[in-house]
Structure formats: C-alpha cells, structure tokens
C-alpha cells in the first residue's frame, strides 16, 4: 500500500479537536483543515503502485438487442490487461438496491442510453479509452419505449423487462404503484361539497444530483482472495451487500473503506463503478482505479424522477379544503433503483402539509428506456410539492384569498392526521413557518438609478439596462419524511471507545456513516463530548469493520447514526460510572461526566476520568433503531408509514426580464423547524444548499432526453446555479423538540429542497401572470406562453 492510499484512510484518523463544543455549538469541521490544504484524499485521489485504470464501454442506444460482442481487437492494444463482459462475472449477474433487476454488465440487450456492456483495464486512462473504442458490438436497434402512453401499452410497444424476467411487484411496464384513499375518497358526492374546484396538469423535468466529485474508487485485490475497495458512497454496507454475490465472495471478504466523498445528494445511493473495479481487480490481480469523466457521470448514476401530475382540489367558499385528488406518474427508467420508495413518498406526502378530509391518490413509477431514476434529495416529495403548491396558489386566486392565508387556514398541526391515517405526534408548525417567512423584511426594490447589471436578469451578459424587468414574490411550504419508511428497519451502529491517551481522556467514535459533506463527523464529535465530558474526540475512518450506519440519505444520518453515537457514548458513560461505584463504593444517584471528571451534582467532583480509567479502555458498540413503521396498504395507502416529518417554508423574490424571458432570483428566504440544531452553522449550510438545488430545478436544471438519448451530459449543457445565479438566502431556524428523536432533533437536509422550488415559480407567475405548469421554467416559456388563469 502506498503512502497516498494510506493517507486516504487517515482522512479523519488523527484529528483531535481541542474545542470544548458539544451539541448546540458550532465547532469547526474535523476534516476542514485537510480540505482547504488540498490534502483530503477523495476517492478520485486514491493511488496505488502498479495500479491499472478501468473504463466501461457504454451503449449508444436506449434499447437494442446485443447480437455479438467482439473484444479481440481491444485485447491487442498494448497496455491492456483485461477486457471483460458479463460472461466473465463469477457470481450473480444482477444487483439492485431494492429489486435485483440490473445486470452488472448488459446481457443480450441494453435498456438505456449509457448502459455498461464491457470493461477494460489498462495502464493509462487513454489506453483504456482507445481499447474501449476497439470493442465491436453488433446491435439490433429497437424503438425505445419512452413515453407514458408507450409504457402503459406494452402489447403495442413492448416490455422494458419481459414479464417472465420480472423481479419487481409491478406489471406491464409499471415498476411500482401506490394508491391511497382517505375520508370518503373523491366521488361526485364529495365534489358537490366544494364551492370552488381547481385542477391542473404539472410536469417536472429530470434533475441531476451533479455532485462535483465524480464516481471513483480504487479496488485492491487482497491475499486472502478478498478485495479492499476505497470508495465514495452513501452506504458502505448496502454496497457490499449488492457487490458480494456478483463477485462470488462472502461479505466479510469484501471490505469497504470510505474515501473522501465529493457530494452525493442521492446519486451515490446506487452502485456505479464498485462492481466494475472489483471485477477488473479480481481478474487482473492488480489494483484498479476507475474515475468517471463528467459525461460518464451523467450516465453512471440515477437521476431525479421526472413527473407528470394531475391535481384537483376542492374548497368551500371560505377556503377550507374539502377534497384533493391526484395522479402522479414518475418515469423510473430502465431499472428499479429506489423507485418504490419514491412512489411511496409521492403517494403519502403528495397532498402536502394540509388537513384535507377527503383524499384520493394514485402514484406509479414506470419502467422505460429512459435513464434510470432513483434517489435525489427530497425524492418523491419534491415533484409533488410543485403540484400541490401550485394548486394552493391557483385555489387562492379562484377564491380571491391571500395565498399564505389560504395555506395557513388549512395547515396541519400536531395532532392532525396525514392522509395515510398517521397522526402527527410531534410539533408541525406549518402555519407559524409561513407567518415567519412572510414577516421577514423584503429586499429593497431594484435600483434602476444606480443599476449594476450584475444584479439583474442576464447579469454579465449585459442583456438589459433595466428595461422590461418586473418583480414578483411567491410563497410555499413543503413536507418531507425523515428516515426510511414503510416498515424498513434502517438501524445505525456506533462504536465508542474511551481511554487515556497522553494523560488525557480521549473518546474515539467509529461508525460506517458516509460523510458526504453534510458534517456528520462534526456532529459525532459534539455528541461524544456532550455525553462523555471529554474534550478530545477522534473520528475513526468509516468502514465495514463496524456494523451498518444505514444510508446518508432521507435526512436521516444525524437522527440515526447520531442517535447510535449517543447510545454508545451513554453506555460507555454508565460503564465508567459503574467501575467507579465498584472501586469507591459511591452511592450517589446524580453522577455524571463533566470536564474530564466524574462528578456528583450534589457532592462535587469524585475522581478524574484519567485516574478511574487507568490503563483500561471502555469500548462499546450500540445499535440505534427508530420506532417501527409499517408498509402502506396497497389499495388504501393507510398505515403508520413514516418515522418523522419535517417542514420548511420559503419566500422567493424574483426579477423577470419579460422581454427576454430571463429570471434573476433576488432573494430566497427559508424558515425551518429543525427540532434541535446540533450544529447551527452546519444546519444553516444544509438549508442554504438545499434551497439552491431547488432553485436549480425551478429555473435551469434538466437532463434533456430525446427518444431515450441524453442530450446534455456535461456541465456546459446541464446548468447548475453559479454564485451569480444564487441570491442571498436568509434562514430562520425554529427548535421545537420532537419527543421521539435523539435530542429532539429533526432531519434537516431535504425539506428546503422540497419547499423552495414552488416559491420561485410562484414568484415568476406573480411577475408575469403566466401559468407555468412545467419546471424548470425556461426563457421560451416566459416569452411564448400566454397569460393563463392563476
């Protein structure tokens, strides 16, 4: 192992934080120093002597039969060590997060543009690239199944997965579906109870996570026949669980260590190059590194499901909601990925944070020959929020009501019931969040006297000097679940070790949590300090030597793995105090650990932790399970399906150049209840980052797919917000503790991504009077659409 690779393992190993900050403080990141020095080893920085470079051949067609694959010319390229196809896979040929329907390398057919068919290992990335080009594949190109109509008519257009090869519970080209009915459902009788009914069809484009660190990692074959993989992922253990059967290895011989992760946002929940690098390493007996280019990254991970939604809401004359009916069609693409969970969220959260007595919902995910879609920040809830929040604005307009007041009138609160029948049993300050965001001061109007073009739509392109610019303001609120739902026990494990090092008590925290940038490592150290009364905390590298930490997704990691660290630290604390009782015969009932001492709250300091510990280390591991949930009933959608709910409200202020169709978001305000901010600096950072990804979905981000082919797989053509596109994002935090959660905390990361997009579109509608039923809103929508009914 070279020094660089070992350095990669040490990203967090020897960092002692002298800070006394426990929970509620904002100590600085333990990995910050390495990150600003350029010394933090990301997965693409891994290096090993004699390592080879791996690369995949990917399909140029979204749907085709593979008639033959000829690797002979590729093998002749000097410097090439291996060329592999599915025939070289030693074990199972399929994998998948929830449904094992995806071949590790295509078998006889390809189902999406970019599907991996063959692998090359070579001594230089350029050698690998040239060898990939020499692999000859003979295709029988088929018409791709890409529209909803085509997918739902398999008799005419065909099956993405033939019925006999079905592994999901779906049928036809439906991967997963969830229905929901509550109250009286939505019937003609129920409709008759409403004075006003509004309906609309809404569409959400395919968004990409666009994390900056490309998929990458280093697979090193081990002497025991196993493999060591240094990898950027969101969940080490679920990677291993999917990899081991394909590699035909027992799980304990597939050892994963987390390398530095350059962002994730759901895009690393599925496997990308993990199996490929390991197959090449197994085959060649040499370390193999794979680093995706940006265009390959667009083909190498799943995206946010594009959605088509139909909503109908009815209300009384005074604005009380009577019913809501909704159908959500999500395009899941070629393979299942997280589609079932996305459907579950869309169905159960798709009516928003409102009390609605009568509800009907039908959500489905399609199989198609479009790119696979799966987890992305706010999965399922993001798409629906654009639908129900647009409906709220439309309903307010129809009733002649203020849109915020209409929302507040129908806002759910603690004690209310979700359409699933689940009672909200912790704070749900929806109306208060809206009030607070409305009460925040507005930014000053555009100063056309002293105009700086960098502040207006078009900015540095110098497209306007203030002519034709109209300001608009919009509001929205959203709901997201925290943690894995529908009966899944996504427990987390933590190991905490307390010992004396250099004359001081030092706690070590060891979990398999994927630190993807969110700051979980900072919070773990804070929890250990708070529970154990120590200053020095070391964070062990995340790996599979300790039990699963579950995924860094679904806003769950501080709740779940933070909760596990708390449990393990409490156990260590109890063991230390028990040791003292045995040694000193203490009878106090108020013993705790503070400032490196064992302290009785009534009798004062009893002994220093250093003296009590001596040479002994207390090393304990605990699992944290959240309260159990149940699957939703397939037909009625009823069930205690979610662990926790989280809410965020936004106000957007935009300037629109109505002549050119350009939008400048002037300010995007967020108010969110976080239960307890364990690290306020990080919490605000999460909310601002989440809002910005929502801004991207509102006005610029979309993977353009035509006939199944991806047209903009680059950062030149897929635009994400720059610092010029992003406005000031004032954030206000509420801390209303959830009695069911560790420290009362509420998951933070996703709610703003759910709620912020509709506020921006509402602001653009407010400025232009256009209907804007599709996101992202593009310049051509603003210049060619006719003013519609709001």
């Amino acid at each position, binding site marked *: 192992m070279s020094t660089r690779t070992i350095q990669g393992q040490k990203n967090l190993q020897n960092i002692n934080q002298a800070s006394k900050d426990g929970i509620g403080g904002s100590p600085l990141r333990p990995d*910050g120093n390495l990150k*600003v020095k350029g010394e933090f080893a*990301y997965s693409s920085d891994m290096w090993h002597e004699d390592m080879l470079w791996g690369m995949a051949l990917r399909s140029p067609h979204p749907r085709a039969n593979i008639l033959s694959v000829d690797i002979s010319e590729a093998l002749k390229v000097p410097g090439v060590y291996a060329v592999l196809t599915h025939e070289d896979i030693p074990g199972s040929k399929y994998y998948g997060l929830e449904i094992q329907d995806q071949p590790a390398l295509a078998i006889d057919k390809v189902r999406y543009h970019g599907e991996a068919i063959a692998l090359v290992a070579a001594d230089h990335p350029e050698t690998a690239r040239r060898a990939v080009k020499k692999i000859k594949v003979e295709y029988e190109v088929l018409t791709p199944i890409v529209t909803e109509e085509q997918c739902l008519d398999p008799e005419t257009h065909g099956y993405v997965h033939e019925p006999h090869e079905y592994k999901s519970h779906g049928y036809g080209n439906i991967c997963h579906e969830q229905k929901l009915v509550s109250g009286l459902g939505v019937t003609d009788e129920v409709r008759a109870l409403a004075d006003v009914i509004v309906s609309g069809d809404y569409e959400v484009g395919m968004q990409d996570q666009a994390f900056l660190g490309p998929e990458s990692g280093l697979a090193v074959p081990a002497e025991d026949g196993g493999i060591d993989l240094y990898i950027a992922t969101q969940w080490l253990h679920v990677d291993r669980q999917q990899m081991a059967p394909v590699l035909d290895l027992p799980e304990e011989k597939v050892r994963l260590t987390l390398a530095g992760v350059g*962002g994730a946002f759901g895009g690393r929940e599925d496997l990308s190059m993990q199996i490929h690098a390991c197959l090449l390493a197994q085959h060649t007996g040499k370390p193999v590194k794979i680093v995706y*280019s940006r265009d390959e990254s667009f083909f190498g991970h799943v995206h946010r499901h594009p959605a088509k939604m139909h909503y109908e809401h009815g209300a009384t004359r005074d604005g009380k909601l009577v019913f809501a009916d909704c159908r959500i069609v999500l395009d899941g693409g070629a393979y299942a990925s997280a589609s079932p969970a996305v459907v579950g969220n869309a169905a159960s959260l798709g009516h928003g944070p409102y009390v609605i007595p009568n509800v009907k919902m039908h959500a489905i995910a399609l199989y198609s020959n479009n790119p696979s879609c799966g987890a992305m920040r706010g999965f399922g809830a993001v798409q629906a929020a654009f639908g129900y929040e647009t409906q709220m604005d439309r309903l307010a307009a129809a009733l002649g009501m203020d849109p915020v007041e209409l929302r507040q009138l129908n806002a759910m609160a603690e004690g209310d019931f979700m359409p699933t029948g689940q009672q909200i049993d912790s704070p749900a300050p929806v109306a208060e969040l809206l009030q607070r965001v409305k009460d925040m001061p507005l930014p000053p109007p555009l100063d056309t006297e002293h105009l700086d073009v960098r502040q207006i739509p078009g900015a540095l392109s110098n497209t306007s000097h203030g002519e034709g610019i109209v300001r608009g303001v919009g509001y929205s609120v959203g709901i997201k679940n925290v943690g894995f739902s529908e009966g899944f026990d996504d427990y987390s494990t933590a190991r905490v070790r307390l010992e004396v090092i250099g004359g001081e008590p030092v706690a070590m925290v060891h979990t398999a949590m994927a630190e993807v940038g969110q*700051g979980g490592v900072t919070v773990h150290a804070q929890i250990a300090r708070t529970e154990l009364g120590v200053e020095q905390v070391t964070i062990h590298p995340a790996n599979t030597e300790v039990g699963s930490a579950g995924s860094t997704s679904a806003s769950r990691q501080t709740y779940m793995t933070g909760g596990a660290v708390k449990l393990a630290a409490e156990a260590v604390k109890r063991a230390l105090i028990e040791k003292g009782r045995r040694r000193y015969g203490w009878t106090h009932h108020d013993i705790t650990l503070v400032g490196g001492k064992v302290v009785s709250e009534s009798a004062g300091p009893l002994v220093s932790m250093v003296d009590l510990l001596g040479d002994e280390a207390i090393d304990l591991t605990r699992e944290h399970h959240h309260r159990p949930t149940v699957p939703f009933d397939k037909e009625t959608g009823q069930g205690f399906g979610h662990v926790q709910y989280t809410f965020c409200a936004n106000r957007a202020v935009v300037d629109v150049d109505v002549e050119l169709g350009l939008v400048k978001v002037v300010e995007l305000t967020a108010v969110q209840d976080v239960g307890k901010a364990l690290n306020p600096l990080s919490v*605000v*950072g999460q909310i601002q980052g989440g809002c910005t990804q929502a801004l991207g979905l509102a006005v610029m981000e979309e993977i353009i797919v035509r006939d199944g082919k991806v047209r903009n797989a680059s950062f030149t053509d897929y635009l994400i917000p720059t610092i010029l596109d992003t406005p000031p994002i004032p954030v206000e935090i509420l801390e209303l503790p959830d009695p069911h959660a560790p420290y009362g905390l509420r998951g933070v990361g996703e709610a703003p991504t759910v709620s912020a997009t509709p506020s921006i579109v509402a602001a653009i509608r407010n400025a232009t009077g256009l209907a804007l039923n599709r996101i992202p809103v593009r310049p051509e929508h603003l210049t060619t659409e006719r003013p519609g009914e709001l």
Partner: protein
Amino acid sequence: MRVTFTANGKPVEADDVWEGESLLYVLRERVGLPGSKNACEQGECGSCTVYLDGVPVCSCLVAAGQVQDREVRTVEGLTDENGELGLVQQAFIDAGAVQCGFCTPGLLVQTDALLESDAQPSDNDIREALSGNLCRCTGYEKIMDAVRLASARKCAGKAESE
C-alpha cells in the same frame, strides 16, 4: 515526453507524459499534487484552478507541454512552508464555507487571486470573480461570508503593518 516546471516553488519533472495529458492530470497523477480537483475536466467548474505564472487558469484546459519551464502554484501552495494555513484557507474553514470540499481548492485559488487584485471587493465583485467556480453543497452563502471575512482580515492585517 518529459515535462519540467516549477510547482509551488519546487522544480518538478514528469516522465512518459502522453502529449494529450492535461496539466491537471500531471499534477494529480504524476507529481503527487492531487489537491486540484477533477470535477468536470472541461473548464466549466473551476475546481482545478491553479496559478500559471501568477494567473489563475483551469488546469484541465492547459496541455501538460504548455507548462514547460513555467511556474505553477496550486492549492497546496497556499499553505506556508511551516504548514500554516493561508488567510483565505482559514477564512473558508471559519465561515463554514467547506462542506464536501471538492470545489474548495479552486475557490481558494480564485479568491486568493481576487483579493490580490482587490483587497476589498464588493459583493457584486465577489460574485463576478467566483462565477466560474461551481459549488453544489453550500448555496454559496458561506462562501460569500468566507471571502468577506478574508477581505476584512487582509485589510486589518495591512492596516496593522502600516
């Protein structure tokens, strides 16, 4: 081919460089300076920004052969000889401007260049100067804070030394 240049004040030499390799590749894979990041490798994201003869450039867009006998300064070169963090580096940590950190090296070099040319930039100046550096985690607010903090510290330092 062989390429020799100066990296962070030290002479470096890379052998067997393929003519199509970028400066970024040579830095990361051949001379042990992986701090500059490979996020897009097409000049859109700014993560690979380095100084080339004092001018910030995307090292992914510079062919390795172009740096022959020239001076390159990377994020690793923003730290002084004793390992002390530079002013901009410290400000990014203090302001919470680092999350995943993949954009950070490029932003640090670009910010360093901005404050060299204008120690007290306006918010609009900051946004213009950093508009070629993508960040996906932070929403840029803490990055704005970090640049303002670095600017304030730099001006305070100048005032003190005068």
